[in-house]
């Protein structure tokens, strides 16, 4: 089946099997490997992208369900060569250790800050409940999101 979607502002098309997942199409058809596959069971959030402006776990969306949608991945956050405030804040606050969860963590945080521009620490923790960091780096992640909120 043919699907087309706007990915990071560019119209992209792919020929897919209905059972293919959005994350596979992003990584293997469109070469956007910034989106990671972690648990592959809709728990860890490493594959989080924005679909029509909402954070979704792309390992649990069929590519055919995303036909016609607008997708933003971690690669699409940078504008005019400048990191998104969340990317910069994760750098500044050392909001990562191994970095595997980071793209998903940042995309979930983008969604969070859209709905709650000035979250407190408890709201940030609730907001990233769908993302797991196995390096146990939550403290700095929460601080990074708080710092980004200040700068946005």
């Amino acid at each position, binding site marked *: *089946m043919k699907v087309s979607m706007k990915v990071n502002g560019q119209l992209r098309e792919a020929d897919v*099997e*209905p*059972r*293919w*997942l959005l994350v*596979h199409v992003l990584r293997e058809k469109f070469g956007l490997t910034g989106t990671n596959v972690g648990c*592959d*069971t*809709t*728990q860890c*959030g490493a594959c*989080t992208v924005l679909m029509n402006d*909402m*954070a*979704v*776990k792309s390992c*649990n*969306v*069929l590519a*055919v*369900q995303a*036909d016609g949608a607008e997708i933003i991945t971690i690669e699409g956050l940078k504008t005019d060569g400048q990191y998104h405030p969340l990317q910069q804040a994760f750098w500044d606050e050392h909001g990562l250790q191994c970095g595997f969860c980071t793209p998903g963590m940042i995309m*979930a945080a983008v*969604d*969070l800050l859209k*709905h709650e521009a000035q979250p407190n620490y408890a709201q940030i923790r609730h*907001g*990233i*409940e*769908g*993302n797991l960091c196995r390096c146990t780096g939550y403290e700095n992640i929460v601080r990074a999101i708080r710092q980004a909120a200040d700068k946005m």
Partner: protein
Amino acid sequence: MYPAPFEYYAPKSVGEALSLLSQNADAKILAGGHSLLPLMKLRLAQPAALIDIGKITDLYGISDMGNTISLGALTTHHDVEHSGVLRRECPLLPEVASHIGDRQVRNRGTLGGSLAHADPAADYPAAMLALGAHIEVQGTGGKRSISADDLFTGLLQTSLNVNELIVSVRVPKTNAKGQSVAYAKFPHPASRYAIAGVAVWVKLENDQVSDVRVGVTGAADHAQRAKKTEDALKGKALNNDAIAAAAKLAADGLKTLGDVYASADYRAHLVNTLTAQALSAAQARAHGM
């Protein structure tokens, strides 16, 4: 992980979806896919066809119908949580929705999908029972309305017929003076499913409970009402003593399940405790009004 291969259909209308459903014996309806797709990826479900109802625009939206509010089957948990009309007129639903899964799950998962799947640990069933909601379904034979009390029949089982589709859910407005609602939940720390969850709706007249419904989820193979607790409260003042006495009866007769997370006895204990918490929260809100 890929699901096993399947035929994929994306109908544009309910009629088209229903005719596809009757033509494909082993088809499953795909809504948000947040219960079905994980099962398919693990190959616990291998339907021959998926009928993706996501493109049927009639199934979206929250409408004020006067005394009731109608929610399209594809209303996401996020939309329920943030709906202005629900927050004002039927606050139990946004409260319950905010407890479901996580942000990403709430952005995709749907009300109709959750109810049709009837996971024993889902949050909405408790709210549907407490609110006395009606589930509007459509089949090739026409439309009918199923009371929430009659919807959940067993483990992942509902009274929906194989060729029927949930199109909307109708809930009453509960913002009138004297009515109060609350949800108390003990979530699994990783999945956020309810190890047990209790939703209550209480109506007070002259400071006495004139009507009450208590919906329990997570504890047994399907969500059900705690009718002994309801009966014990009716006609009484909603005070701490009445709540404590009534809540002790909540798990009475309930066939609680035991698993690796919680034993059957512990779940029964949780049901009683959460019933007391939910009733106390409803009491506090009623007196705050």
